[in-house]
């Protein structure tokens, strides 16, 4: 299992446009918003966390569709499926999600405080955003795994995958932003939405891999 994780990391590092493309797209998003809303700093500060979350969400869509496709094309997937009795397929999916998250989402989380600074989000807000992203984005990956497993047969399902999973990611976004806001704007609570966010992630960490495993077995 560890070997699988390491292999996927190596692959991503080798050809991994995914990670950096995501980060750069994230950057582009943050860079563009101010031009949209105009130079209104405290407005930026207000919507800052939301923009960061949206940016991260959209950025993490990049590369999701290829999660299983490369394995399917070069035949590795067949062997992964056959090894079901040794390693549970759902677990394999889980590991692959973890690898994908580490390589192409974690960087976003790491740079998010920096970008938050650009939108002059207050320091506590920066921490809060980073924390919520850290806890929430895995859910997106797990949901994405389902989408990408469903479309594994399609050569270029990038758009379709996003269409399938974006609606499902809404709760994650809602509570992530709510928690981040709660940390800044005093009246709103932080803990409650944050806990819900954790719950959602755990929920999809369980559902996602199983659904994806089911979809992969069905793929042929």
């Amino acid at each position, binding site marked *: 299992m560890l070997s699988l994780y390491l292999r996927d990391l190596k692959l991503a590092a080798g050809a991994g446009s995914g990670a950096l493309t995501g980060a750069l797209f994230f950057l582009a998003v943050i860079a563009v918003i101010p031009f949209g809303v105009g130079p209104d700093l405290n407005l930026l500060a207000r919507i800052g966390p939301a923009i960061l979350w949206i940016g991260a969400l959209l950025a993490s869509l990049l590369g999701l569709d290829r999660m299983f496709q490369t394995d399917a094309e070069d035949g590795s997937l067949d062997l992964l499926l056959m090894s079901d009795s040794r390693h549970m397929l759902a677990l394999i999916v889980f590991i692959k999600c973890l690898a994908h998250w580490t390589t192409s989402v974690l960087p976003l989380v790491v740079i998010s405080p920096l970008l938050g600074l650009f939108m002059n989000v207050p320091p506590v807000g920066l921490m809060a955003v980073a924390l919520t992203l850290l806890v929430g984005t895995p859910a997106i990956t797990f949901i994405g795994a389902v989408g990408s497993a469903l479309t594994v*047969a399609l050569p270029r399902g990038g758009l379709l995958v996003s269409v*399938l999973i974006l609606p499902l990611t809404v709760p994650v976004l*809602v509570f992530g932003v709510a928690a981040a806001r709660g940390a800044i704007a005093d009246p709103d609570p932080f803990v409650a939405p944050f806990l819900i966010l954790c719950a959602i992630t755990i929920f999809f960490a369980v*559902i996602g891999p199983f659904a994806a495993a089911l*979809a992969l077995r*069905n793929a042929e």
Partner: protein
Amino acid sequence: MSDTTKKPSGVMALANPTRFLSLSDALLPWLGGLAVLLLALGFYMAFTAPEDYQQGITVRIMYIHVPFAWLSMFCYTLMSISALGTLIWKHPLADVSLKSAAPIGATFTALALLTGSIWGKPMWGTWWVWDARLTSVFVLFLMYLGIIALTRALDDQSRAARAAAILTLVGFINIPIIKFSVEWWNTLHQPASVLRLDGPTIHPSMLWPLLVCALGFTLLFSTLHIMAMRTEIWRRRVTTMRKLSARKAEGAAS
């Protein structure tokens, strides 16, 4: 039909769709007729019902808006059950039901959105607000379209069936979100006043016409759904025939 789903070879696979066809054949006219009758009655009651003291004439939109809204959720629930049928019991009709329900569900959701926003103009002074209830219904609409897109993208039938089933099940979480969005977030949209544990809070003079309309639309929905299922079954049979004849020709060719 027998080769649309893999496992249940033999009697069950062959018999069921056929029995369904003959049964629905007998059922359809009654269903349709009843639906029309109820709807007529419901609309009559609706227009003779007292106007809401604050909403005025526009309250009458409720009698179509609410049924549409309910059915949009009901349809998805039905599809989720069919999805279970496909994945667990591998019932040949389950996939047909799911596939043919999706477009209808999408339409009803669109209508709920439409009537809702038409109602919203006088009530809230805007066609659209991005509050939780409205947006979650919008998300439901997107999910319907996503399911349709997926089934169209995958050409192999049984594969598409299971894929759609999985997606439908995963997407089911949206239904409780829609239902309880009004409680969880403070929205413009008004909270449930009929489907509540502690009984309806809405005045009977409005409740009855609403219920009659709802029942009528539900029957309408089932009628449409069954018709769609019939056409889908026939479509599949035709494709099967084509394959068979093609193979015969091919056998002759070589």
